[in-house]
């Protein structure tokens, strides 16, 4: 079986700081995703990538950059962390067609 690994698990940043979150999968999945989850809310799509070096904006891309330099990894950068921001960032991947999504366990971000 495969696994999706998100690093770090916890991230504390300062206001205005640039922060990078990483996601690795060994399923050989084509498509990878970054979602933001706020307390009591569903997941909102930030960026996704359907293949290496591809990037597609989601509904919440402002304030973020993403990078898919290898098929197995997908990075997300918070370009300028906002004070008191607290959220969980979830990475997911899937193969093509009707295949299932697989989620990582998340990176918990706190900005002080």
């Amino acid at each position, binding site marked *: 079986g495969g696994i*999706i690994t998100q690093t770090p698990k916890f991230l504390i940043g300062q206001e205005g700081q640039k922060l990078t979150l990483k996601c690795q999968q060994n399923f050989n999945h084509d498509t990878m995703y970054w979602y933001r989850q706020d307390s*009591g*809310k*569903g997941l909102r*799509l930030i960026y996704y990538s359907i293949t290496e070096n591809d990037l597609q904006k989601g509904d919440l891309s402002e304030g973020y950059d993403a990078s898919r330099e290898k098929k197995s990894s997908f990075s997300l950068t918070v370009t300028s962390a906002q004070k008191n921001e607290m959220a969980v960032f979830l990475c997911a991947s899937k193969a093509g*067609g009707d295949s299932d*999504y697989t989620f990582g366990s998340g990176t918990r971000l706190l900005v002080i």
Partner: protein
Amino acid sequence: AQSVTQPDARVTVSEGASLQLRCKYSYFGTPYLFWYVQYPRQGLQLLLKYYPGDPVVQGVNGFEAEFSKSNSSFHLRKASVHWSDWAVYFCAVSIGDNNRIFFGDGTQLVVKP
């Protein structure tokens, strides 16, 4: 535009009782529908999925859901809830080529002893 509504932010049931979690979707066309569960400090795990076909789909751990085109609904059910079912449940819809999935806000299930 497509959307998913879970009208109940929190549902409390007694252990052993039956459960229904509600989900309404909005989409012009035939959607793919999903229920995911999230345990504390974990990612989402797929409970079950609906692709066009039999409207009642069976999932893991005794969960099932029924698709209703006329009601635009995909409610989740379980005949007898166990304490280990205490979690947040998300309904989701995928459209087109299944490359994007849209989530509801989730329903927190609380199980009373």
